[in-house]
């Protein structure tokens, strides 16, 4: 690479910052947890995951961590995703395809509105800790 100017350095810093911020979990209070058991993956959870990452990037939201977990037990509505936003009820969504994933980011996370038709209840309250 050729020698940088001040502008180049600043641009580079900005462009790389997002990438490294993803590693920093501190201060991130919104969690998106994607069920990535065999059932979830078979139902397309990887595409949903990509959609989540992409949409978050698009909206430039920096306080979200996207994690994966095992099967949540709702195999009939895979892919399933749990969304935790402070001040809102923890929500489990089912049938989350890529489009729904994008809706969840723009509605639930950005606008604070639940994406109604995809909400499912926990399979068994007693075994899942609140």
């Amino acid at each position, binding site marked *: *690479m*050729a*020698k*940088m*100017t*001040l502008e180049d*350095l*600043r641009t*580079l*810093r900005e462009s*790389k*910052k997002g*990438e*490294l911020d*993803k*590693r*920093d*979990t501190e201060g*991130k209070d919104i969690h998106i947890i*994607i069920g*990535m*058991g065999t059932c979830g993956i078979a139902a397309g959870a990887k595409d949903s*995951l*990509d959609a989540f*990452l*992409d949409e978050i*990037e698009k909206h430039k939201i920096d306080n979200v*961590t*996207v*994690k*994966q*977990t*095992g099967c949540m037990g709702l195999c009939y509505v895979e892919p399933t995703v749990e969304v935790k936003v402070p001040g809102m009820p923890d929500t489990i969504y089912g049938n989350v395809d890529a489009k729904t994933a994008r809706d969840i980011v723009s509605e639930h996370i950005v606008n604070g509105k639940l994406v109604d038709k995809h909400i499912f209840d926990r399979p068994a309250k007693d075994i899942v*800790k609140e």
Partner: protein
Amino acid sequence: MAVKNYILVCGGTACESSKATEIFNSLKEEAEAQGVIDDVQIVKTGCFGFCEKGPIVKILPEEAFYVEVVPEDAKEIISESIVKGRMVERLLYVDDTQEQKDEFDVEDIKFYQKQVRIVLRNCGFIDPEKIDEYIAREGYAALEKVLFDMKPDDVINELKESGLRGRGGAGFPTWMKWNFTKGADNDQKYIVCNADEGDPGAYMDRSTLEGDPHSVLEAMAIAGYAVGADTGVIYIRAEYPLAIERLEIAIKQARDYGLLGKDILGSGFDFDFEIRLGAGAFVCGEETALLRSIEGNRGMPTPKPPFPAVEGLWGKPTVINNVETWANIPMIILKGGEWFRGIGTERSSGTKVFALTGKINNSGLVEVPMGTTLREIVYDIGGGIKDDKAFKAVQTGGPSGGVLTKDFLDTPIDFDQLTAVGSMMGSGGMIVMDEDDCIVDVAKFYQEFCVEESCGKCAPCRIGTRKLYDILNKISKGKGTHQDLENMKTIGTAMKKAALCGLGQTAPNPILSSLKFFEDEYLEHVDDKICKAGKCKDLVRFEIDADKCIGCTVCARKCPVGCISGERKHPHVIDQDQCVKCGECYAACKFGAITKS
């Protein structure tokens, strides 16, 4: 596909020596084999600090903190953590106080809770071989700020405001050094980094350079701008190959980006580096000896004044600071001196990195605010003494420092407090001793080190260290007298006053401070000819209690010199003439039949 997981593999020397590179490679291979190579970014970072449990692998964003990982674990880590998003339970770090493995956060590990990471801000987080990652973490923003928004005097004032004191040991205010050099009238000036870390058991500087080399480069360039120097020299010991390699990579990358070299970022300011390798002499950590060594001469100190700030490398004004001091500077420039002053104590601002070693549960690299108490470091961060033994003392400052007894456990640690109690901050080695350590033996170890490392130029050090060592040797053999103890005090005091450099001036510290706090133990060696810890071999005697011995023959089989004899089911006897006092029999006996006196 976007990256969803990050795997951070510790690449510090401690983890590297326990196969971190192999782990790194296996992880890559496995990720490839299991088809998830595009989903993860595997990064080799600098030291996480938690060396006791290394090698360490951390998975983000799940924050899975895996300890004592071996290359064979790679397959499971990838298949569980990455493919299935589950934790590999057996590799997770478990604190004794931690009840459950699941609800777990790295910040909950006690080892990290009390730490404040300024110097080590990027260690264990970025890939030290990628300048982009450093830049993304506000790297080179401080250099940018000084070049375009600050005058040299502003930089020095900011440092003055911060109260930063040299982390190499003596604690001299950093801004004053810079100001002297800035004020010196000369067309050529130098900036030197002292990376000749020599205290036994200390590895703060090595880890900083391995984990975040750019922070030191950036700071030195800032100093160059402030004092009017265009050349930086890093003096590093050749025994630190990984640190050297990463420094070389860092320098090359910064040059390619135009962050070093001519006309940096179009500001008109030039700055470049050379690396000089030291042969690993302790005395070369002393600044004048270090400069002589860079010049190609034998590493021996020269009298001060003239101070290097005015007449340093090649006779030119030179700013010389150690690695840890440098690593603080970009943060001070970015966040301001006032911010830095808010951390730590009144006269010692900021944090200090310690290499915590010895008889401690969590040995490792810790960074705490100045003013943290020894108790917090030893018990909260360090997890207490190994095997629940009793705390005896802590040695700070290596061969130049002294011991701190349990009476000082609640003393806040900063430059002045440590000096007041007869020890010193030193560069940050902290060795914890328990009841099994003999104070005479420890003092002897350090004195032997000083004898070896004395450059021999001045008589107080050359002869003094040898004499002190001889006396300690005599005491450890049970032949010491009260006069010997007095003589050690006299010789030690004379050395403190008369030796040419810091090495000789501080070499008697371990003896003088241990004489002060553990005089009883010295007297036991002298008067009663006993060593309760059993370290001074000539004073230990192992015997078999015939009433307790059931003749199981375990001791006889363990004895490496075969000096224990006896018939099966009959009491055994130790042949004292042949016994080498290794203590194997004592440790092996299940019936408490062997006595140590």
